[in-house]
């Protein structure tokens, strides 16, 4: 016999407990818990709110109400809402449409699927639009299109940046062709805003699809995405039905778009406000010139006794600092932007924005890895056409916002491979030479190690080119030179001497303006000896270009290259 049946249990007194009102009886109030669709856990709603609607168990992102999003992003008490009184339209006289809208307005306390207005983000003024999926899947009808267009028109007049948090099923079926026209209308308003040199950031949240993706969502100067968001033109179910195939895991998610070059960065919700306000700050460019870096000691030129081949080996050295190290040291607030907006994010080139001496600059670098794993990811610093197109995109962005471009060159050469040819390696390099020649902002290139041929030149059509003492710059590798001319790649050391590829040679040929001295053996430990010099010289470059005339810069740059050769 089990103990449970042997114990004598509680004898309660027969006193009726005081009757409680039904509302005071223990019960779970509506909305106290929320269930995570991804992991099935029940989450205490208050906790979920505190965690900005990210599941504490599995990290799944819940969709956010527009009001909550605004509370998260906009400084308290600074939000001014715009255009809540546009009124509904029913251009195709769809039966029941107006009723549906009214019901949703009552239920969601929204006037339409987007909230627009203006406010401060960590003190930086900005216009903001936030879409709310509860309202007909935030589809774009004429009111949504109108609110966005008016916001851009007002932002253009007031000279303000715009941020839109997108989420939408696409066009609004009930408004048919008129809904389609909103795509054109909003895009046109964005173009005018952009032509004024104003900043537009989009933050793609789950789900951003259809006509919204194919218009204002993809037109940001900077496109951010929340982790795991579904982003695409056609919905996954439609694609599966059309092609009769199952789509792979992660298809059309933020990370997929990042990998394919359409998103600048995937940003966690928790740090989103800080991330955005930092970008806004970098675009305000009202910082005064202020350089408080170390004044580099002028090194007395010592005789560099190394042979050309020695320098080739040094520039390829395994322990030699790579572009990321220079960026870390010279541009500690560097924000990296990804993607070419065509096919891919090529990690052999990294680019982004930062401040230097109080000024915003665009930094683009050819990037090798520290070890084999990183080198595989970065393709040993050999860019693909996607890399050059990313670089060009960021250069054009710099031109729009009037900030100098600093290029760090370190590549054995442009990638030589099947896909590179398929996507037009030659065209990509040529396009960069062409566009750089007339980029209306100051451009400086620094060759930090290897500058291999056209792959290097694609980042090297500049106002000034500087070069580290033991870096090399050549039309091809000494091995290639030896095997073409002498059918013997083993004679590379001899070729290196003949090719005239050292910094000293470049200076005497007038290819570079400045040679930066290196310590005996340049490593991470003594990198500051080099970066201090670069910082000091770079500060000079920035100072010389505080006020610049884009056309004059292009003229000088034209003449700089015009003079080479016959």
């Amino acid at each position, binding site marked *: 016999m089990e103990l449970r049946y042997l*114990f004598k*249990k*509680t004898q309660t007194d027969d006193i009726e407990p005081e009757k409680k009102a039904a509302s005071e009886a*223990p019960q*779970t*109030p509506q909305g*106290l818990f929320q269930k995570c669709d991804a992991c099935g856990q029940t989450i205490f709603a*208050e906790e979920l709110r505190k965690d900005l609607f990210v599941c504490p168990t599995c990290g799944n992102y819940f969709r956010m109400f527009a009001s909550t999003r605004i509370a998260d992003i906009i400084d308290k008490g600074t939000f001014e809402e715009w255009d809540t009184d546009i009124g509904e339209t029913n251009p195709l006289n769809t039966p029941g449409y107006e009723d549906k809208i009214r019901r949703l307005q009552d239920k969601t306390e929204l006037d339409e699927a987007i909230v627009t207005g203006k406010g401060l983000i960590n003190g930086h003024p900005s216009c903001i639009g936030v879409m709310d999926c509860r309202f007909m899947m935030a589809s774009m009808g004429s009111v949504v299109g109108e609110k966005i267009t008016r916001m851009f028109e007002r932002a253009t007049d007031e000279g303000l940046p715009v941020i839109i948090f997108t989420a939408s099923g696409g066009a609004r079926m009930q408004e048919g062709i008129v809904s389609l026209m909103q795509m054109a209308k909003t895009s046109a308003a964005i173009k005018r805003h952009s032509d004024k040199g104003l900043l537009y950031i989009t933050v793609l949240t789950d789900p951003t699809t259809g006509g919204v993706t194919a218009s204002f969502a993809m037109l940001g100067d900077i496109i951010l995405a929340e982790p795991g968001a579904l982003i695409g033109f056609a919905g996954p179910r439609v694609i599966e039905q059309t092609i009769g195939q199952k789509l792979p895991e992660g298809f059309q998610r933020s990370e997929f778009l990042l990998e394919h070059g359409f998103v600048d960065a995937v940003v966690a919700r928790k740090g989103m406000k800080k991330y955005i306000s930092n970008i806004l700050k970098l675009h305000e460019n009202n910082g005064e010139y202020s350089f408080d870096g170390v004044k580099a000691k002028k090194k007395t030129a010592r005789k560099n006794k190394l042979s050309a081949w020695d320098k080739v080996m040094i520039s390829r050295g395994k322990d030699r600092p790579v572009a990321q190290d220079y960026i870390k040291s010279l541009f500690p607030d560097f924000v990296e932007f990804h993607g070419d907006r065509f096919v891919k994010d090529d990690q052999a080139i990294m680019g982004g924005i930062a401040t230097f001496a109080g000024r915003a600059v665009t930094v683009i670098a050819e990037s090798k890895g520290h070890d084999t794993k990183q080198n595989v990811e970065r393709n040993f610093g050999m860019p693909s056409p996607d890399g050059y197109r990313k670089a060009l995109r960021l250069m054009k962005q710099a031109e729009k916002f009037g900030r100098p471009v600093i290029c760090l060159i370190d590549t054995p050469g442009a990638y030589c491979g099947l896909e590179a040819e398929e996507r037009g390696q030659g065209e990509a390099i040529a396009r960069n030479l062409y566009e750089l020649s007339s980029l209306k902002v100051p451009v400086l290139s620094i060759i930090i190690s290897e500058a291999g041929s056209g792959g290097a030149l694609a980042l090297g059509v500049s106002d000034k080119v500087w070069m580290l003492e033991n870096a090399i710059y050549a039309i091809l590798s000494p091995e290639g030179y030896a095997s073409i001319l002498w059918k013997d790649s083993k004679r590379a050391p001899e070729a290196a001497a003949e090719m005239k590829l050292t910094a000293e040679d470049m200076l005497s040929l007038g290819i570079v303006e400045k040679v930066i001295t290196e310590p005996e053996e340049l490593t991470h430990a003594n990198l500051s000896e080099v970066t201090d010099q670069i910082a000091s010289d770079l500060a000079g470059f920035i100072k010389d270009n505080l006020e610049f005339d884009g056309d004059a810069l292009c003229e000088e740059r034209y003449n700089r290259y015009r003079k080479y050769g016959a």
Partner: protein
Amino acid sequence: MFKKVLIANRGEIAVRIIRACREMGIETVAVCSEPDRNALHAMLADHTICIGPAQSSESYLNIGRIISATITSGADAIHPGFGFLSEDSKFARICERCNIAFIGPTSDMIAASGNKAQAKKTMMDAGVPTIPGSAVAVNTVKEGLELADIATYPVMIKASLGGGGKGMRVARSKDVFEQAFLTAQTEAKNAFGDDMMYIEHYVEHPKHIEVQILADKFGNVVHLGERDCSIQRNHQKLIEETPCAALSEELRKEICEAAVRAAKAVNYENAGTVEFLLEPSGKFYFMEMNTRIQVEHPITEWVTGIDLIKEQIRIAAGEPLSFTQDDIKITGHSIEVRINAEDPEHKFRPCPGKIEMAYLPGGKGVRVDSAVYSGLEIPPYYDSMLAKLSVWAKDREEAIRKARTALGEVIITGVKTNVDYQYGILSEPDFIEGKTDIDFIEKHSHK
């Protein structure tokens, strides 16, 4: 008063709460995990609900399941016991939102006590002594020296991101401060990549003294004397006693009144414990406030005659305290010994398994709070405590003899226990003479 109380716990504390409820005529609902179906608390309660698998996260820590068990069983209150969800402010908050009485303080009080920095500041403002030291972290010797002067030597230098003893050094005087600071800082930098350091007074060879508090919802706060819990191994208490032999009447009054001030400073309600470190000099410092019933509450019950669990339930039901500070009289001496299923010969590793036979002592002045019985399978998933043996006698000497006598009768076979180890401590001359501090076990561990 409540009609039905759900006990969100297991083991001896669940049994203790079921008994208190039964004596008050309150129905009880036990919750248990799958391997605990035959646990004593599950069999003793009027109703039992199995709430999930063995892992605590799926059962005793699973708020959603405990709340739905409460609502479906028709209970109107939850007693959380100690451990598990007892100091989880979120759990308390959810109970509040669901109209379930949480037998303990409010969620806000739990949250406030859980925030150590905030709690320290509140106590300083309330005039409760705290360990002097830096509210800010510093990274230069010069700033460190200034703070050390305020904190008074000896000082502890510790990494702001520290843990595991890394980046920690004691400087006994000003002339060795610089070296200690730099060594600790280098360690901190290497281990945590951060060189910011905290400087605070190093409390040397203190006793762990805690004061039991009861406070109702009407602002009445009383203390029930102190407990000396200095016999600890790796911050786990082994033996507790009350009164503390080392306290003079004046010092006792001072500490207990500080504890009442601490409770009042946070508008505390229900049972709570204010922990202090007591230096040999007689200086004492606030450590933290425990917002729950403590394991060692029986010794306070012995010397005051007050049933703390019943008082907790009455307070939660909205009743005022039925006594004042003057009504509380401390009589005699009480000692508690914790009996764990662990192997002292192998680094005290837990020893789950089947209890073949359990014989537990009794007699005048002997109390055993336990959830074991012959044939019970001790699951490996939870705390290893099997029983608490507590005794009462007219003075400390007799209490020690009684504790030894009773412990000598404890027979538990099938699993390894620390009974002999505890018997050894009770026989240790330093213990008998009251020469105890929190380093006692370390000092005597070679024996």
